[in-house]
């Protein structure tokens, strides 16, 4: 896919005028640079992660009243946890490219003589970081506010499941965010496009999490569903790798 890079006039013309930039950066260092910029921006503005975390905690409170229950367990707990995490993730997905679209980040990136896939990888890692930060807040909050069984013994399986789910959410979220951000109704289209694509992740995630959160007869996440999540991540990772370049051409 990087073969199309040379065809882009935007990428070629300014590079000729800036010999210093033409030394170019390796793929890894480009990813690191963009990732560093993303994390710095997030640290300085505190825009996404606090909002996502607060949203998750508030949603747990909402679920308490909506379900009219003091505590949840089993598949109900798994469902509440995953729905909350996904909706909170959508907040992050919606914000992911807004600064780049509004303040010229896309143009700046296209001016640089680097592989565009680096932007995809950096953004996926950024979103992954946001999601991990969100879960570090949300899972303890969930266990304090709603979860009936103790969360301790489930942590290992939960971490594995959430990691696989997060990877899929990050890949799909990045792909869709790059698509939605430059449309007129970006805040609307983002969730509309992502939610159906998240359905297999919800199915797999809930199947893996439900046995972990049972009060009695607790068991580990079924390997079949972990594998399903992994395959889904892999397929969408490849799709995003193949298609992302077409989204950042102008």
């Amino acid at each position: 896919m990087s073969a199309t890079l040379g065809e882009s006039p935007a990428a070629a013309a300014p590079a000729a005028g800036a010999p210093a930039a033409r030394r170019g950066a390796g793929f890894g260092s480009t990813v690191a640079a963009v990732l560093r910029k993303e994390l710095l921006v997030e640290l300085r503005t505190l825009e996404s992660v606090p909002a996502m975390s607060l949203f998750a905690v508030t949603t747990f409170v909402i679920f308490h009243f909506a379900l009219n229950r003091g505590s949840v367990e089993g598949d109900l707990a798994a469902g509440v946890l995953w729905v909350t995490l996904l909706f909170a993730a959508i907040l992050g997905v919606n914000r992911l490219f807004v600064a780049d679209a509004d303040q010229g980040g896309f143009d700046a990136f296209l001016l640089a003589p680097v592989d565009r896939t680096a932007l995809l990888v950096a953004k996926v890692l950024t979103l992954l970081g946001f999601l991990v930060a969100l879960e570090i807040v949300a899972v303890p909050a969930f266990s304090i506010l709603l979860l009936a069984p103790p969360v301790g013994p489930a942590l290992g399986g939960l971490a594995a499941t959430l990691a696989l789910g997060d990877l899929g959410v990050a890949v799909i979220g990045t792909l869709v965010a790059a698509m939605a951000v430059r449309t007129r109704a970006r805040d609307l289209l983002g969730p509309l496009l992502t939610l159906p694509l998240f359905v297999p992740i919800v199915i797999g995630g809930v199947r893996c999490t439900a046995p972990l959160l049972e009060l009695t007869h607790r068991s580990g996440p079924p390997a079949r569903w972990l594998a399903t999540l992994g395959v889904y991540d892999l397929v969408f990772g490849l799709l995003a790798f193949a298609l992302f370049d077409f989204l950042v051409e102008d």
Partner: protein
Amino acid sequence: MSSRPYGNGLRALSFATVAAITGALALVFFYAPLEAEQGFLQKIFYVHVPLAIVSLCGFVLGGLLAIQHLRTRDPRWDMRSYVAIHIALIFGLGTLITGSIWAKGSWGHWWVWNEPTLVSFLIVWLLYATYQPLRFAIEDPERQARYASVFAVTAGAFVPLNFIAVRMSTSYLHPRTLSSTSNLPGPMALTFLISLLAITLLYATLCKYELTAKHTRAQVRALRRRLSGETAPARGRSAAPVALPDGAMPAAPGETLGARFGAGSAPGTAG
């Protein structure tokens, strides 16, 4: 002129479709035996299942055409991809409605959640329902085509994955039509295959018809613009690098215009 390849064969295709549908309906009502358990209700099977199969194949076809568009950057492929998905979406709505009727008749509920095929079809349909809003929200025709193609490829790959995931999650309840046509008694299998052929022909005719209509409309617009004195139709208008395959004839910019108006006229017809 260059409208010929578009209208070509439309009449023959239409007649073939009418004949096939008439034949299929005749077979459904007069030839296929009544099913023992469900009786007359089971006849909806000959409409519902072909609609579902053709609709899903249409979604995947839209993805394949979109790959072609991304590879060649020829707006005609985007147009075909758009039409394939548009008609498949309409067929999908038909599938959902007929499926619901069948579910009400045989299981007593309009909607059954532990029925994987029904559920995954709904998810796929909901995903594709955002295709038109996505196109609508992008003004630049070139980028609209590009983004729509990316969506079509992603969603096309999602269709089989989603079916696998949902099917894994629930116990089987649905008749497994694709794998069990061999289990159908001969007359039923024959009727089913003829119905499938008829619906496929209907899909092809509608696609062809929509392509022709869009092409013609774009041509008329381009010609009218020339007549009314606004010279240089659509070529200098767009700053985006819109590909004009055949040079300056109205047919060429008509393609990109058509792709654009395709999205514009769609909400009226999609419902």
